[in-house]
């Protein structure tokens, strides 16, 4: 493979997805921990799949442009550059976008308890694809009238042990806590035999 150099002491990229309905605070969450101002990237998707076509001016009925906001955290000691990708709002297109999930460590599903139904597509999608995730209940105005247990029940989570965290998406500490919780989940999943 030309240009692929494994010898360099550079970080390897890895990504975590930040999902949730429109307006739930995905970009705010990314901004809270990112070392750069969140950036926006766009991709044009069609029902025929993506990867080869960007046919400006040629309209497909099923084509749409999806946008993702993302940020970055360089973890030099671990030798990785962590990219946090906010998933696009048009969930029905995620299925056509293999790149979105390929190689992802896991996801944080951000939920607004006033609009829980908006987080169902993300939860269904990750459960169907087997991508580990934690739930972050964004506490707007610092308030959260529900308990983690109530939220867990209302979300009908396939795995009853899925962590449900109360967080303020603006808080670096809270967001870091959610990321650590996701890592704990991944570590537990990667080492089932080492728990004894």
């Amino acid at each position, binding site marked *: 493979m030309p240009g692929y150099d494994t010898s360099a002491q550079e970080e390897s*990229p890895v990504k975590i997805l930040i999902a949730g309905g429109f307006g739930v605070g995905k970009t705010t969450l990314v901004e809270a921990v990112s070392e750069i101002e969140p950036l926006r990237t766009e991709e044009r998707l069609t029902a025929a799949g993506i990867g080869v076509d960007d046919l400006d001016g040629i309209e497909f009925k099923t084509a749409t442009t999806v946008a993702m906001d993302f940020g970055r955290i360089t973890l030099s000691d671990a030798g*990785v*550059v962590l990219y946090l990708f906010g998933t696009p709002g048009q969930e029905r297109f995620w299925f056509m976008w293999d790149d979105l999930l390929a190689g992802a460590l896991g996801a944080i599903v951000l939920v607004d308890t006033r609009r829980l139904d908006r987080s169902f597509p993300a939860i269904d999608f990750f459960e169907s694809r087997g991508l580990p995730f934690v739930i972050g209940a964004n506490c707007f105005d610092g308030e959260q009238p529900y308990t983690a247990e109530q939220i867990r029940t209302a979300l009908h989570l396939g795995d009853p042990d899925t962590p449900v965290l109360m967080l303020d998406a603006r808080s670096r500490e809270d967001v870091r806590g959610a990321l650590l919780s996701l890592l704990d989940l991944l570590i537990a999943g990667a080492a089932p035999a080492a728990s004894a």
Partner: protein
Amino acid sequence: MTAGQQPGRGRRARLYALTDGRTTAPGAALTMDTLITARVAPDADGSLPTEWQAILGMCQPPNGRAVAEIAARMHMRLTPMVLLLSELVERGLIQHRPPLQANETSNVHLLMKIRDNLARI
């Protein structure tokens, strides 16, 4: 996905006309989270297009940048950016580092390192 049966399939082939036969460079599967690092200085060759120089300038080692980040900063969509970067790979101007593979992302020691480092940010 049975893309072959999709009505748009036939028209998609027109991309070959638009890009002079190029889709992506053989073997260089660049994804949105592939890390790109320049192999030359941006002004190494004054004849390089301005756009290429800008890309080389933003991913000078040791600061590799993800394809998505370069696309965002260049105000391009992902797919055209992948095509452009593939051209740069072919010309030896940049190198690319794929995202961690499944056997690595399920490695408990690496995950613990990531966790430890995250706890300190």
